[in-house]
């Protein structure tokens, strides 16, 4: 039995949509790596700092959260771009 491709009907608009979906997946997928690692580092350093000086725990936690919120913004940009690709394109 010879191996053949299946019948597919690919139009220009379909191709654009397919590319947009793949782009959305890659945008969010790769965009999540950086913030994930970065926020993890921030939290690791906060744990270290609290371990050294537990009395400043409240201040350090707040600083950690602010730092994480800032480093998460690139992840949110990826999310926005993905949603734009999914629903606007």
């Amino acid at each position, binding site marked *: *039995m*010879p*191996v*053949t*491709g*299946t*019948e*597919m*009907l690919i*139009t220009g608009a*379909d*191709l654009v*949509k*397919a*590319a947009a*979906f*793949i782009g*959305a*997946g*890659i945008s*969010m*997928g*790769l*965009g*999540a*790596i*950086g*913030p*994930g*690692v*970065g*926020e*993890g*580092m*921030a*939290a*690791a*350093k*906060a*744990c*270290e700092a*609290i*371990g*050294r000086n*537990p009395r400043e*725990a409240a201040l*350090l*936690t707040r600083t*950690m*959260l602010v730092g*994480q*919120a800032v480093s*998460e913004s690139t*992840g*949110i940009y*990826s*999310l926005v771009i*993905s*949603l734009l690709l*999914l629903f606007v394109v």
Partner: protein
Amino acid sequence: MFEIDPQSLVKMAAYTGGGLAIGFGAIGAALGEGYAAAQADMAISENPKMAGEITRNMLVGQAVAESAGIFALVVAILLLFFNVANPNLANAASLLGAGLCMGLGALGSGIGSGMPAAETCRAVARQPRLSNRLLTVMLIGSAVCQTPAILSMVISLMLIFLNYGDASAIKAAALLGAGLCMGFGGIGSGAGSGHPAGETCKGIARQPGAQSLLTTNMLIGAAVCQTPAIFAMVVSLMLMFVNFGDVPLNPTWAAFMGAALSTGLAAIGSGYGGGMVAGASCEGIARQPRAVGNVTTTMLVGQAVAQTPCIFGLLISFVLMFKMFPETAALSPSMALLSAGICMGFGAIGPGLGNGMTAEGAVRWIARNEEDTGLLMRIMLVGQAVSQSTAIYAMVISLVLIFVI
């Protein structure tokens, strides 16, 4: 549309698979052994009198670390000389998948099992007296690191030798996906479980009395950090053996590939992150053996949370495998499903690693400052939860791609 003679297609897939298997397998072995050899060199320059003893330990460590490479070699040779009775597309896919599975699985284990060998060489230079005990622990550690490679080998041998009796193009996608999933899933766990093994060897040199505590902790930590590899194996087995019934080819092939990529890639971050946590806990116990209870508890909590991204990956995989998709002739629905898998898979790598780092920091400082265990564990959980949020965004995008589009 082009047509290929099925015999040559299968041969092509088998050769490519064999090449990938031995290629990745040799890279893993080379990286692990190269790292160990570099550390051994440093150890010898620190304490030249112990050169013989260090070379001895290095040799035994290398012999065990290389077994992942030998697994890859065996699979590669089998692939090169394997004759298929009635060649078809599904055979070709399963052979290619088998090669990828073994190669990538051996990559992680090769890197991971270099770490205990390296740390043992350094430790022997510092504490020549403990050479024999270190050797034993190193061997146990590096044998534990081989588990993901063994799981990969089991899956790839199943892919090569079992007859699935179904030569459809869907089965081909499922079998290729099974190989990919287990292969990627083994990388993180294999490389990650090198951390606890290495830190245990280092820790025994520092605190010989804590040896049994350290060994137990190493085994627990390594076993838990191999959970993502087992998740990947579950997905692979489902792709291989579950009868999905009469499903349309066009979006379903992409759903299977997406399911495989989702769990497989997600397991990389969680596996490696879990290994970092386990490594830190072994270091901490060596520093302060009395803190063992708190350190082990925190390690388990940290690893459990670090596996969350992988569980998200598994969730997406199961949705992709078991949701029925209507048949379509267009390209975009299948690309949406594939993209959902890629999105979740890559999106889980970073948060998995980040969660591992966070728990690593917390565990390390709980060993140094045991009174504040509760506080540190709380901060660790909040930090991990926040750094997971990008994995959750990826999951949301995946779910949108699956259900809304």
